[in-house]
């Protein structure tokens, strides 16, 4: 296609948008609403995901070593643990370390445990982490069968719940986003259908004088694209501004070490690009859907 022709298509597409002011506004509004919700949702989802990943990364298996185990056997156990392919880190924690940790974690009340320093009832332990947190269960079960293991401890319930929650959240979120996008596509395609009907006589004449289908299709395609892009301006502004505000105000107040917002740069920019892409996609899909049957003249 010649550049001049592309220019013509853009002019025609732009004209359509202006000519059908109110309908265009309704479609752009639908895209805007959709993208605001999608933006909010993605913001929430991706951050939750990040938090979940952080928590997952902290998941560890504590392998308590049997009190009767000798140095030699402890070394053997360590070797066995390291040989499990899914395991990434194996760390020895002596019973003194364990007690200190316990005392520390109890804060003020922990001082009571200091009495045990003389006669420490705790076990030596290995702290084991897996490459992928999802392997935790399976690895833990395997370790249970090793010799000189008195107990395998890990936050089974928490992990299982976290995984299921994450999974559900992802599916629900995805379904929600798709439903919103379909609604917007429907509205955009209806608007373009109206602009096509208004121009059906023109299209008939174009076909009569030998216009190709793609020549006829282009302006409507561009009309859809423009509607999608127009519809994404406000949501992008809100995402950029809103996330900036959140990031500035929340980051310092969050106390849990594993709760950490995704950094403004590049997250806000990435999210904006995603919204722009979804907006353009909605517009183009809407236009493609509406023109198809009109060209069979």
């Amino acid at each position: 296609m010649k550049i001049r022709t592309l220019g013509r298509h853009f002019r025609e597409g732009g004209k359509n948008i202006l000519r059908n002011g109110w309908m265009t506004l309704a479609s752009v509004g639908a895209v805007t609403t959709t993208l605001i919700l999608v933006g909010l949702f993605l913001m929430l989802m991706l951050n939750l995901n990040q938090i979940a990943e952080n928590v997952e990364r902290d998941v560890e298996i504590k392998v308590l070593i049997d009190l009767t185990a000798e140095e030699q056997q402890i070394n053997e156990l360590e070797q066995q643990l390291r040989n499990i392919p899914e395991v990434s880190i194996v760390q020895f924690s002596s019973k003194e370390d364990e007690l200190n940790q316990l005392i520390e974690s109890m804060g003020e009340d922990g001082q009571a445990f200091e009495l045990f320093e003389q006669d420490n009832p705790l076990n030596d332990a290995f702290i084991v982490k897996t490459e992928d947190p999802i392997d935790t269960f399976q690895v833990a079960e395997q370790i249970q069968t090793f010799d000189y293991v008195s107990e395998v401890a890990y936050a089974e319930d928490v992990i299982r719940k976290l995984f299921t929650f994450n999974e559900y959240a992802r599916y629900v979120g995805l379904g929600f986003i798709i439903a919103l996008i379909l609604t917007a596509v429907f509205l955009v395609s209806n608007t373009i259908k109206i602009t096509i009907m208004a121009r059906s006589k023109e299209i008939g004449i174009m076909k009569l004088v030998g216009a190709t289908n793609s020549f006829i299709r282009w302006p409507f395609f561009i009309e859809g694209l423009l509607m999608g892009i127009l519809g994404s301006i406000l949501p992008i502004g809100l995402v950029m501004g809103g996330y900036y505000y959140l990031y500035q105000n929340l980051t310092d107040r969050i106390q849990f070490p594993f709760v950490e917002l995704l950094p403004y740069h590049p997250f806000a920019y990435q999210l904006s690009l995603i919204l722009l892409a979804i907006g353009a996609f909605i517009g183009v899909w809407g236009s493609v859907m509406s023109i198809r049957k009109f060209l069979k003249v």
Partner: protein
Amino acid sequence: MIEMKGVYKTYPNGVTALNGVNVTINKGEFVYVVGPSGAGKSTFIKMMYRQEKPSRGSVTINGVNLTTLKERKVPYLRRDIGVVFQDFKLLPKLTVYENIAFALEVIEDSPKKIRRKVMDVLDLVKLKNKARFLPDELSGGEQQRISIARAIVNRPSLVIADEPTGNLDPDTSWDIMRIFEEINSRGTTVVMATHSKEIVNTLKKRVIAIENGRIVRDELRGEYGYEN
């Protein structure tokens, strides 16, 4: 130029419009298509620019078989055919100039070429001074001249007209006919469906009469043959 062999056309609603049509029209001919309303004239004409496809039989234009022509090739066929209608089919929001230029923009001619071709053709239909008018500001005869100009601006080898004088008074009709004659004299084939006894009987040409979807008469320098 145009060849129809055993052409039948039955519409989805069961109406049979063409019932075995065989005809050959040569390059440079001027042909009237006559017959009562509903006889199949319009369908006959629509076959030529592939507005309708035959249910059976074949239609060939300039060696191209329209029956097997791929959908996406149809636009290129139409660039070599000009079509004129009784109701002009002009776009009311475009000026005279733009209405004609439209046909060239669609096939992506350069602006310079478009300007030259449009002015030339406006000269031919003697409406150069009305280039900036809107169709509604012109008389019926003038609007038909514009629509003829649009049909021939790309210098097609075939011009098809479906009752082009149907909405015009006799004087204006003669103006239109003079333009068709002029076009024909330059070597363009003209096929015209008409109800005008006066035109057919005065301006003697080949006459094809269609009744009940069949060609019942085909004479060089023929007569209209019906009471109006």
